[in-house]
C-alpha cells in the first residue's frame, strides 16, 4: 500500500504568508506538494467555519497563517485570528480531533524558507498521525 499522503489546507493572508509561499517558489525551495493554499485578504477574516469545512471536505491538517502582529495591513487582523483560533481549538478538541492537526503560524513576506520548513514539518507530523477522523466524510476526491 502506498504511503499515506496527508492533505493540508493552508489559509494564507495575501500580504505576508501568500507572498512567503510565492517566495519559496521563486527561490526554488523544495517542500512537499501536499499543501493547498487558500489566499485570503487577511488572517482576521478567517472564521471557524472555513476550517471546519476544510476538515469536512477531507483535509488532514489545517494551517492558519498570516502577518505578524505589527505587519498587518488592517491593523488588528492577527489579534482577531488568534481569538478565533483559540475558540476553534477548544471546539475541535471536544469533537475529538487531535490538537496537532491545527497549526497557527505567522510567516512574513521574506520568510520563504520558514514557509517551506513549516509545511515539511507539518507533513511529517501528519504522516505519523494518519488520516483525519473525518476523512470518511469526503465524498469526491480532490485532484492532486
Amino acid at each position, binding site marked *: 500500500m502506498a504511503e499515506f499522503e496527508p492533505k493540508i489546507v493552508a489559509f494564507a493572508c495575501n500580504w505576508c504568508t501568500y507572498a512567503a509561499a510565492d517566495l519559496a517558489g521563486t527561490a526554488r525551495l523544495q517542500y512537499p506538494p501536499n499543501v493547498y493554499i487558500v489566499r485570503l485578504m487577511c488572517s482576521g477574516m478567517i472564521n471557524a467555519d472555513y476550517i471546519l469545512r476544510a476538515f*469536512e471536505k477531507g483535509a488532514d491538517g489545517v494551517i492558519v497563517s498570516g502577518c505578524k502582529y505589527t505587519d498587518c495591513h488592517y491593523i488588528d487582523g492577527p489579534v482577531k485570528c488568534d481569538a478565533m483560533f483559540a475558540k476553534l481549538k477548544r471546539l475541535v478538541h471536544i469533537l475529538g480531533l487531535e490538537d496537532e492537526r491545527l497549526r497557527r503560524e505567522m510567516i512574513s513576506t521574506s520568510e520563504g524558507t520558514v514557509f517551506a520548513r513549516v509545511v515539511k514539518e507539518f507533513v511529517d507530523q501528519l504522516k505519523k498521525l494518519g488520516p483525519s477522523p473525518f476523512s470518511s466524510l469526503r465524498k469526491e476526491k480532490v485532484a492532486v
Partner: protein
Amino acid sequence: MSLEDIIQETKTYYCLECGKCTSVCPVAKYDPAFSPRMMIENALLGFENDLIFNRELFSCLTCYTCQQRCPSDVDFPVFIRKARAMAQDNGQHGICAHSGQLQSLARLMTSLDIKQRRLEWLSDEYRTSDDSDVLFWVGCAPYFEPIFEDIEFNALDITKASLKTLNLLGIEPKLLPNEKCCGHDALWTGDIETFKKLAEHNATQIKEAGVKKIIFSCPEGYRTFKLDYPNYGFDVGCELQHISEFLAERIEKDGLKFNEVKKKVTYQDPCRLGRHLGVYDAPRKILESIPGIELVEMQYSRWDSICCGTSAWTNCDSCSNMLRAERLSEATATGAETLITCCPKCQTHFRCAMIDKGEEKRSMPNIEIMDLANLVASAMGD
C-alpha cells in the same frame, strides 16, 4: 420529494387563503416580504422556483404559531421543512448564522471514526453511573460553551444544574460519552441526510445503553427524539421526559419541596416545548411550588408566546433582533427581575440581543435570564 408530494403530505390544499397565518406570524410582523400565505399560494399554483429560491424560505421560525391558528390545519412548519429540503437539493442553504459552524459541526459529527471529548467538564461533584436505567441527554451544551463565550452564556451551567438536581433527588444518571448532535437543526434546515445519519447513531447508542428513560434539559432534543425520530423510523424504545416534566411529576407524586428563593420572575415558553409538544404547565408548576417565587405572566404567554427569533441558526437578521427587543420589553414590562426559560437557544438569542444592540443602537431592555434548571438547583441546594 417533489412539490406535489409536499402539498399532499402537509395537506396544504386545504388552505382557505384566510391569511391568519400571516397575520399572527412573528416574522411577517417585522418583515413585510415574508408571508406564509404567499408561500402556500406559490406552492399550490406550482411556482416551485418562487418557493425554493426565495431567500425568505429560511426566515421561518417554525414556531408553530401559524399552525395553531390555521382553521384548515395546514402544517406550515413541516411544509417549510420539506420545502427547505428541496431547496438544499438545489444548492440553497439559507444564510447561516455564526458563520455556519453549527451546521458544519453537525455534519462533522456524522463521522463514525470520531471519539468525542464531550464530557471533560464532568467533575467529581456530579455523580453518574453506567448501570443506571436513566439517561441524561447532554446535547450540544459542550459545544455551545466555546462558541457563545462572547455573549457570556455557558450552556454547560444548565447541564450541571440539571445533573445536580437529579443527584439531589437520588438519581445517578448515565451519560453517553459519544452522543451525537440530535439533528434538530439539520432537520429544520432541510439537511435530511445528515439528520438521518445522526439519528441512526444516536438510536443505536441508546439501544446499546439499554436505558428505560431519557431526561432532556433541551426542548429541541426532546422534540426531535419524541416526534421526529419515530417519524423517520428511528425507535429509541424508552420513555422520554423533559426535566421540567420530570420535576413536576416528582412534586405531584412525592411532594418534592424546595427552599425559599425570593424572586419575581416571568416565564418564556420555548416554542419547541410549548407549541410543539404542549408542555405549558409543568414549568409553571415548578415555579409555583418554589416558595418566595412570584410568577408574573407576560402579555403573550403559553400558546401565544413570542419566539426568541431564530430557529435553526439560519437567517438571523434585524427582524429577529426586533422580535427579541419586543419580547424582552414585554418581559421587563411585567416588573419581573428574572426571565426564566427552559431552552438554551432562547437564552443564547436573548443574551446576544442584549449584548449586541444592532446597527440601530436601540435601547434594548435588560433583564436577567436564567434557565429553569439553574433556578431549581439553587432552590434545592443547601
